[in-house]
């Protein structure tokens, strides 16, 4: 059977099974499903790399088409390229980690774990879709569990945050839907991206459709000024929810921006590239500065996500191969890193029952493992060499600097400058939460990470370190895909 179909089937089977078994045991089934998914993703990676090594340069591999809704020419059309494969890897890694971290959830465990799996199914489906309606379907499929996870299992102003998140994402989706339908009309009735890609739309049309698609996906990836769901959503979500949101959900947007906006509408992308750069630079700098003032460690991380996702969009806006590669690398790096970050924060919160930096302090002494994870992932966030953040950020900077023009240079310098601010807020948070004297005597009774938290952390940590130390295979795989895109952007005007 086609691997891609299996990738979709595994979560579905896990979901179906979990309906019928004892609620306490659901997590085992779901974990099993997630691990199976992870193994499948590695197998996919292996086969993909073998195919590429064998010289198969087709833009999409393992393609499969089933008619879905013939009247409107909607197909279940799956296929992957290097970007999708790396996104799938990220998704399955984060899923396993998120499930492990929430091992002790006892509030409606069946529904909780099913929501997690549903989210994974949505994300996986989105990353393999090559049909706009199919992509839209899976994108929306991933929104519902987010809402429920936050609204039911969240904390703080959870209903407010969940509603805000769902409404903003839906608003984004509606833009995407309009864009999709316009493309459908323009292409004389096709939702297939291979068809749409070969279509030479005139520039007027591209300029009309591109903002719809880009803004729509931009909402998902915290494009300024549509990012306000990010801080509230992340901070109210349960630990696994935050990990999913930051680790996977925001990547749906970035991936969509590349796959369904930039590639399909190269001329539109080029026309709006200055606007993209402007908005993303604002997001980077402004997100970083806004983070400085946050008092809640989840808010700190959520705002820093705004800043980091700005790098993704900056990379896209620069329209060259290096920057695009950097954007994809940044998505992966940020996904792994923030997932782990939120995992660590969740571990701290579940023990100390507060997330206010003013109340926390000296936790490294009490919980060395969690503390070390928090510090290491913080260092990753500020771009320490040897961890994933360095690779992706530097690639974006290198790519961005190659674009001539003062505007681009200034944007790049500002983006570079933001990593100093990042260092400030990360170290500030680390210093206040982890270091210094123990603030509260009841912290002394707290315990360090349990086996499931440790395994989740190790999983993501290893991924971060591997990406940080051996980035070449990933970078190569991705730049193989971004090269034709960059050429496409270059040749638009000629």
């Amino acid at each position, binding site marked *: 059977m086609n691997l891609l179909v299996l990738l979709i089937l595994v979560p579905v089977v896990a979901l179906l099974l979990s309906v019928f078994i004892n609620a306490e045991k659901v997590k085992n089934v779901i974990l099993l499903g997630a691990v199976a998914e992870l193994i499948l993703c590695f197998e996919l990676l292996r086969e993909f790399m073998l195919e590429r090594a064998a010289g198969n340069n087709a833009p999409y591999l393992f393609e499969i088409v089933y008619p879905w809704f013939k009247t409107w020419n909607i197909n279940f059309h799956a296929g992957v390229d290097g970007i999708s494969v790396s996104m799938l890897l990220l998704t399955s890694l984060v899923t396993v980690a998120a499930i492990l971290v929430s091992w002790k959830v006892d509030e409606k465990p069946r529904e909780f774990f099913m929501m997690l799996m549903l989210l994974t199914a949505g994300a996986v489906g989105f990353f393999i879709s090559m049909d706009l309606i199919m992509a839209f379907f899976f994108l929306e499929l991933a929104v519902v569990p987010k809402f429920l996870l936050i609204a039911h299992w969240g904390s703080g102003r959870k209903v407010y945050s969940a509603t805000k998140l769902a409404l903003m994402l839906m608003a984004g989706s509606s833009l995407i839907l309009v864009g999709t339908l316009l493309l459908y009309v323009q292409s004389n009735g096709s939702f297939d991206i291979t068809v749409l890609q070969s279509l030479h739309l005139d520039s007027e049309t591209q300029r009309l459709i591109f903002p719809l698609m880009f803004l729509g996906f931009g909402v998902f990836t915290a494009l*300024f000024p549509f990012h306000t769901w990010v801080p509230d959503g992340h901070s109210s979500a349960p630990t696994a929810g935050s990990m999913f949101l930051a680790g996977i959900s925001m990547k749906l947007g970035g991936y969509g921006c590349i796959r369904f906006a930039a590639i399909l509408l190269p001329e539109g992308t080029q026309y709006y590239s200055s606007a993209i750069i402007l908005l993303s630079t604002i997001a980077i700098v402004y997100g970083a500065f806004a983070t400085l003032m946050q008092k809640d460690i989840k808010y700190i991380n959520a705002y820093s996500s705004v800043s980091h996702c700005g790098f993704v969009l900056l990379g896209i806006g620069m329209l060259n191969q290096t920057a695009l590669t950097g954007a994809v690398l940044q998505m992966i790096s940020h996904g792994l890193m923030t997932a782990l970050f939120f995992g660590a924060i969740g571990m701290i919160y579940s023990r100390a029952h507060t997330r206010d930096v003013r109340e926390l302090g000296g936790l490294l002494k009490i919980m060395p493992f969690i503390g070390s994870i928090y510090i290491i992932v913080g260092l990753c966030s500020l771009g320490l060499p040897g961890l994933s953040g360095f690779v992706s950020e530097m690639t974006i900077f290198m790519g961005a600097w*190659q674009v001539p023009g003062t505007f681009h240079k200034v944007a790049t310098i500002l983006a570079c400058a933001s990593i100093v601010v990042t260092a*400030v807020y990360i*170290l500030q948070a680390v210093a206040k939460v982890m270091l210094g004297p123990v603030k509260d005597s009841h912290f002394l009774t707290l315990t360090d990470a349990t086996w499931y938290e440790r395994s989740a952390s190790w999983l993501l940590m290893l991924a971060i370190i591997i990406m940080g130390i051996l980035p070449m295979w990933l970078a190569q795989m991705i730049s193989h895909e971004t090269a034709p895109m960059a050429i496409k952007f270059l040749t638009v005007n000629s």
Partner: protein
Amino acid sequence: MLNASTLLLIPLLPLLSFLFISFIGKKYLPTLSGTISVLVLSVSAFLAIAVAYNYFFVVGMTNGIYEAIIPMKLEWLRFSPGVSIDMGIILDPISVMMLVVVTFISLMVHIYSLGYMKGEERFAVYYSFLDLFTFSMLGLVMASNLFQMYFFWELVGVSSYLLIGYYFTKPSAVAAAKKAFIVTRFADLGFLIGILVLSFHSGTLDIQTLIARLTTSDTTFYASATFTGFMGVSSLTWGLALVFIGGAGKSAMFPLHIWLPDAMEGPTPVSALIHAATMVVAGVYLVARLFPIYAISSPHLLELIGYIGIISSVLAAIIACTQTDIKRVLAYSTISQIGYMLASLGVSTYGGLNGEGFSASMFHLFTHAFFKALLFLCAGSVIHYVHSNEVKDMGGLRKKMPITHLCFLLACLAIAGIPPLSGFFSKEEILAAAFAHNQTIFYIAWLTAGLTSFYMFRLYFLTFWNKDYVNHHESHEHHSEGSWNMKLPLLILMLGAVGAGVVPFHHLITSDGQPYESEFHLNITLMAVGLSLFAIIIATIFYRKKNNLSDKISSSISQLYDFAYHKFYFDEVYQFVTQRILFNTIGALSSWFDKNIVNGVVNTTAFITEAFSETIKPVQSGKVQGYALAFLFGILGLIAILFFFNF
């Protein structure tokens, strides 16, 4: 000997030791970790010395110059064709010299720490961090690629952060670590952008290619780098200046020096290794590494670097005269000496005798590593004994700790430039170079040399003479100078501090790799030594016995004294800029904007929708007759419309 596998062992051994201790040693061999680490590092140090011997004396010169050897180069991350981060090893005189310095000092510090850190709760962690630092520093000095250098540059910064914040329950240590990291990080921003600029114009990140392309004026790369510019300065100069900012940050040059004195919160051996001998000279090393480009393509910038160095040097020396914390005095002295090295680079040009500043700078870097490490380790012993950093708690220690006393005295003489100790030779060369090329720098440097002697002997007398020591910790009497592992490194380093001057640097390390014959300038020597001796005599008068002469002097120039005592208010200025401008203005503004404007728009949209639905909600009153009435009127209205339009 000079093959890749041997050379790789030098940095990888500490890395393995780091990994071993962090994952296994910390838990199962908490006390043995130190010994393991020392053993591993001695192998590294031995290899490094062997490599140096082979490089200089076995392989030796080809065509009359010491050529750079690149035994290994692996593509690590490729950005675009030609531009990639390579993990390579470069062997040339300066990197070989640095290899020796780093491994040797690191080994000494490792041994010393066995005694100094004994009984610490996180003993193994300390060693793992030390090993991480050693690895990163070795990677930095061996880097053959500019971005590789940045890679290790950042790692060095982080290990410094971890080690300064070693006592992480102490808020002052945490703050110092944070400050050190952020200030250097800010400077590294310059380095990063500098790399971007240079690589953009030269199309490479490889240091040798970079030098080749940017120093020969007939290449297209050179043309592109010098043609385009910003604010009347060519891109090349901008790039080099930005790279230098990174170096200045790491080397704690004015005005980015503020982190170094605070970094003394770390354990003293760490200060000796990182904040005196190795990491802080990375800035000098960086300029030296790219020296041909600086010297050939941008000589004015190099001159500016020289001025920055000498200004830092004199300012730090003035501040050092007023400080009372033994480690802080040494920290300012470090800034001052590094400023010296940079000034020396600044007065140098490329090639031959005119490049004697380069040679002198490296020479001073070499000798400084020994005597400054020695000074710090001596200070460590003193602190270990009296449990205080303040000189007022010391005094009269010469009888209690004779070995330390002797070492400290010799190191002081060395730094003061008294012949025939090592510092004399290197300083003399620097002064000679300055005299030949830039008289202004020469006179300031000469004055600084006097100040150096003064504050070092002030410190020496305050610590070891001045008054009789009153021991508050009688129980510690029996190991006043610590165990053998604390004394041994002192003695070895003392040998270095005394004898390092005999190394013929102008034969080995020169700007173009070609040996030259240095000249001996008797007049300069007499001037320098005379001033130093004079300063030492003044210090002796002021501080050998307890008297109030110094207080009188300081009160007579109280304004200047206060100004210097408060470190020229640099900290306050930075505090103002970061706290007021960055946090309270930009940060608070962004946060406010986000909370009220961006979020406000979203919430207002929701609010308007809600308010609108609230207004039309009463229509659904639940009163069935109301609905019926509406229905009736609806039908009537429809009828009226149909009738009116005569459908």
